[in-house]
């Protein structure tokens, strides 16, 4: 009579393999849990933190757009806060579970939360929350107004800094601009409140930095909201932002508007070429 046996060579091999796989998975499981992070917290320059009615100028704000959630690092506090917009939760975060990337982005481990700190309150366009007896509010950053250099814009907002760093100007156009004889000045009128400017002005910031130490000056002029009633905008005949005005030897030779901003250096080169 035939009997089945667990000692069948194939069954034994399969059992051993299964056990081995299980052991490997068990060994990897904690590591996988530790590696579970939420990346993509990018420095945010649209808002600033107000604590008990005073602007915390040294506070750092990061925004993960997909969640979406703010990571708030108040100055002088060892307790960062995670402010989740959709779940309206405010939670404290372990500093040890945060990793700042060379790109300036912050990563957060999934087990970074150390405790609940309350809920968000929304009043029209701004939000506030109460944590440990302190009243926090995320308020819109003041509009940048007046004349600025590329460096000043990079200092004003991380968006300009990171946007400029990631923009790659067209080498041929840059060479063409540098080769122009005469004094070239480009003034970019922009609004720090304007989404289109946020997307495209960093490209011009990069061009301005690349073109330093030449006979070309590129500067920026921040306009307030409602530019149609602004005297500076009216004097410069600027009715939309961003608008770049190109001067050659003190005389206006062209403007960068709308589609020109996809590649500002190409547009400048084209204007200077007289096309």
């Amino acid at each position: 009579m035939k009997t089945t046996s667990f000692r069948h060579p194939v069954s034994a091999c399969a059992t051993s393999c299964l056990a081995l796989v299980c052991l490997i998975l068990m060994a990897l499981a904690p590591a996988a849990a530790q590696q579970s992070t939420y990346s993509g917290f990018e420095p945010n320059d649209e808002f600033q933190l107000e604590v008990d009615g005073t602007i915390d100028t040294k506070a750092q704000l990061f925004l993960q757009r997909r969640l979406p959630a703010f990571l708030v690092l108040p100055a002088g506090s060892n307790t960062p806060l995670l402010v989740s917009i959709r779940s309206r939760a405010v939670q404290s975060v372990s500093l040890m579970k945060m990793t700042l990337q060379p790109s300036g982005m912050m990563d957060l481990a999934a087990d970074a939360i150390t405790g609940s700190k309350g809920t968000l309150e929304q009043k029209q366009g701004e939000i506030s929350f109460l944590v440990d007896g302190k009243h926090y509010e995320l308020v819109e950053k003041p509009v940048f107004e007046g004349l600025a250099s590329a460096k000043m814009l990079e200092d004003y907002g991380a968006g300009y800094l990171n946007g400029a760093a990631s923009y790659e100007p067209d080498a041929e156009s840059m060479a063409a601009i540098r080769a122009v004889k005469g004094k070239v000045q480009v003034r970019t009128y922009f609004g720090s409140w304007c989404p289109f400017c946020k997307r495209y002005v960093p490209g011009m910031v990069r061009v301005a930095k690349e073109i330093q130490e030449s006979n070309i000056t590129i500067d920026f002029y921040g306009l307030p909201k409602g530019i149609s009633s602004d005297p500076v905008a009216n004097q410069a005949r600027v009715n939309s932002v961003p608008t770049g005005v190109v001067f050659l030897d003190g005389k206006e030779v062209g403007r960068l508007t709308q589609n020109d901003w996809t590649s500002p250096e190409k547009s400048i080169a084209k204007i200077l070429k007289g096309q």
Partner: protein
Amino acid sequence: MKVDQNRGKVGAEGSEPGIARTTLGWVGGVILGAVLLFGAWAKILDPSAFAQQISSEGLDFLVPANWVALIALALEIGLGVSLLIGLRKRSVLAASGLLVLFFLFLTGRAYYRFANGIVSDEPGCGCFGNLVERTPAEAFWQDMVLLVPTWILAVWGRATGALKYGFARVAVVGSVTAAGLVVALLSPRLPLDDLATRIGKGVEVTTLCTGAEDDRLCLDTVAPELREGHHLVVVTELDTEGFLAGVDRLNAKAMRGEGLMVLADATLEASQTFFWTYGPSFEIREAPASLLKPMYRTLPRSFEVVDGVITRTYVGLPEMPEAEPFVDPFAPPAEPSVGSQGQ
């Protein structure tokens, strides 16, 4: 001796024009009629946009804009068909002349306003609805070139003799006008969005533009990401009911990392309020109304873009799987509920 009764009548008005002149007159009438009918067709496809334009032009001071739109449409169709089938009676030509003058007044006024900076973001005249992209200058000069010479030809080459099948022609005009009005009334409920807008399969995003010369702005400048990859683009206003009802599903799509872009002519304040209220996982991209309007009849409207080319369009939002309830990945574990037992 036989006397031609008709000749006798014609003679009373003047001599009958020659064959060349009547042919030119017929050609002028046909072209003018065709232009009027094309304009009417664009309005039939999107009558609410036409009514909106009438309202924005301030032409609804006596009668509500919807009624003005309907009357104007009836006139345009009636005159267009009349000219097309050679019904060039004095009354038809006089009314056509007045209509041509009225169009020139509207486009001329828009051109003057735009040229003098009175209206900074003036879209081209909507006389051809969303079908044709025209700047104010183009609208004026095209109307001038297309309408004035053809009208002059139609008048100059008018045969003054008795019209054959006069009653039948009038019946055709009446029938087509009535049919046009019926289609206009039904069209918002008909699937004519691709016909009525500039969005359609095979259209490149680089060709969806507004403005001219320095003010030209194209969709791929507003959203350069669309040039590559697969994206779903939603055109909406941020308080549109159909869009708000789909926010959860759109969030789920964005969370899965699928390409999604929402275009809205929204102020920064409106975008921020939407952000704080709904916590969207997708970005709201601001775009001017003049760029967005030719893309839809009703909001929201969506389309898929693959490597810069539209591959599919939707009225409203596309079918998307029902979104799972949102789970905050950082939320602390729920505390066990107490107090529910023994109730």
